[in-house]
């Protein structure tokens, strides 16, 4: 089915009144009623700015400014770069056609006018432009909505003021980084003050990335509030979250998780893992990977999780991260890999003892192809000495 061209606007530039009228007659029969006229190139340029045509029918030989000059002038202007320009030219002149294309013409119509051919070429250009504009408008709308969604996703995460307040309250150094591989991502992290001596840390990574994974982080956010953390061991809490996620996630979608509670009174970190990458625990000179294996969340209702406890006294730290840190590589270096993380942390500590997250990220980005293939979250949690 042919597209309606009734809202298309055509500018006819020709110094011959008879030609202008004939062309108008022909394209009016094709359903185009918004038509403007100009008698030379200069008038034509002014008419383009005023009339905003969707297509220009342009004669070559005209006084004051000819069609070739006018077309070149249009193409120099970014706004009119894509404007279809159809030259009226004798179709048997190869040389003239080359000149018209060189000047930036989109196509030709023969002179004298052949109505059928003229309408067909005009229609072709206008339809192409319409489709292109529709696509551009669609793209713009999606882009706008994605950037709203992106802002919403970021609002799920602890904001810097809150991070600073928690750090102050519990005598911690807290630094965090969150980056999605496209507009939206499937990572999530949170910090939860439980009482005066206990604070919880959660890091979750939904499989995949992009919109589907991001929708899951919104689902997650509403679920988290449903299960109080105060009276549950990390393993119990993860089990509850797992059951709720299993109810809402389709098969094949799941999340890896780390949930830990730091108790300042007993200097103890108690945590449960659900397939998150191994966090790094640092106490004194000892850096070790914690075992965070566990059935991923949302895959089976039968999943059971186990708690582990480790000493985390003043001066000690815990480093949490999502798998992008160890799975994304570059041309020169492959991915970092799980086993290399403690040394990676140690190197960063040598650069900045108190805030090693920045040097870690610097080194990561220096060796990794960008944009990242997956979402990256990294959280540095240290107890002040």
């Amino acid at each position: 089915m042919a597209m309606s061209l009734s809202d298309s606007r055509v500018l006819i530039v020709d110094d011959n009144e008879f030609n202008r009228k004939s062309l108008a007659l022909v394209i009016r029969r094709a359903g185009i009623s918004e038509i403007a006229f100009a008698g030379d190139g200069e008038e034509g340029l002014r008419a383009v700015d005023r009339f905003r045509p969707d297509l220009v029918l342009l004669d070559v030989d005209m006084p004051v400014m000819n069609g070739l000059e006018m077309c070149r002038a249009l193409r120099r202007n970014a706004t009119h770069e894509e404007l279809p320009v159809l030259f009226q030219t004798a179709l048997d002149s190869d040389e003239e056609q080359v000149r018209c294309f060189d000047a930036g013409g989109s196509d030709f119509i023969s002179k004298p006018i052949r109505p059928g051919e003229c309408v067909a070429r005009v229609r072709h250009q206008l339809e192409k432009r319409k489709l292109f504009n529709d696509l551009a408008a669609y793209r713009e709308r999606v882009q706008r909505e994605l950037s709203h969604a992106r802002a919403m996703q970021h609002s799920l995460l602890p904001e810097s003021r809150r991070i600073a307040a928690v750090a102050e309250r519990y005598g911690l150094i807290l630094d965090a980084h969150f980056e999605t591989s496209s507009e939206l991502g499937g990572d999530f992290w949170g910090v939860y003050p439980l009482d005066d001596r206990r604070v919880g840390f959660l890091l979750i990574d939904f499989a995949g990335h992009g919109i589907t994974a991001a929708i899951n982080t919104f689902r997650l956010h509403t679920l988290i509030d449903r299960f109080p953390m105060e009276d549950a061991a990390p393993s119990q809490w993860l089990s509850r979250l797992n059951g709720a996620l299993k109810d809402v996630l389709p098969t094949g979608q799941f999340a890896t998780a780390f949930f830990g509670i730091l108790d300042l009174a007993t200097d103890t970190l108690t945590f449960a893992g659900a397939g998150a990458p191994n966090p790094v625990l640092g106490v004194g000179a000892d850096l070790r990977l914690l075992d965070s294996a566990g059935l991923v969340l949302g895959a089976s209702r039968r999943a059971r999780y186990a708690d582990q406890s480790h000493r985390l006294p003043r001066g000690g730290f815990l480093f949490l991260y999502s798998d992008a840190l160890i799975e994304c590589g570059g041309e020169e270096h492959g991915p970092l890999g799980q086993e290399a993380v403690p040394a990676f942390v140690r190197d960063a500590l040598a650069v900045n003892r108190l805030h090693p997250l920045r040097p870690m990220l610097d080194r990561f980005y220096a060796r990794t192809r960008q944009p990242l293939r997956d979402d990256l979250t990294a959280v540095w949690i240290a107890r002040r000495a």
Partner: protein
Amino acid sequence: MQFQTRSTSDEVEVRLNGRLEFTDHDRLSDIVGLLDGQRARRFTIDLSGLEFLDSAGLGMLLILQEEAEQRNIKLTVRGPQGDVKRSIDLARIGEIITIEP
């Protein structure tokens, strides 16, 4: 990811090669399709040639498990190596799918 299929009267074996990741989601339906129209009650996915598996890849194994279960077909994952094995162990996929060394 590429795969080769070998069928006997009682078993279908699919060998995966390369990397199984996010971008392979479209290929999954090809493998699920293999579950249909087979007499075999055993379906083995051989991962010994697979170099890399990301979380989306793990998700695909879970989907295959469910699709097999629905058709009353026994799914086994065989021979994961190196990083692939580490990923499967970390996510404890063995609690859901039978993993053979």
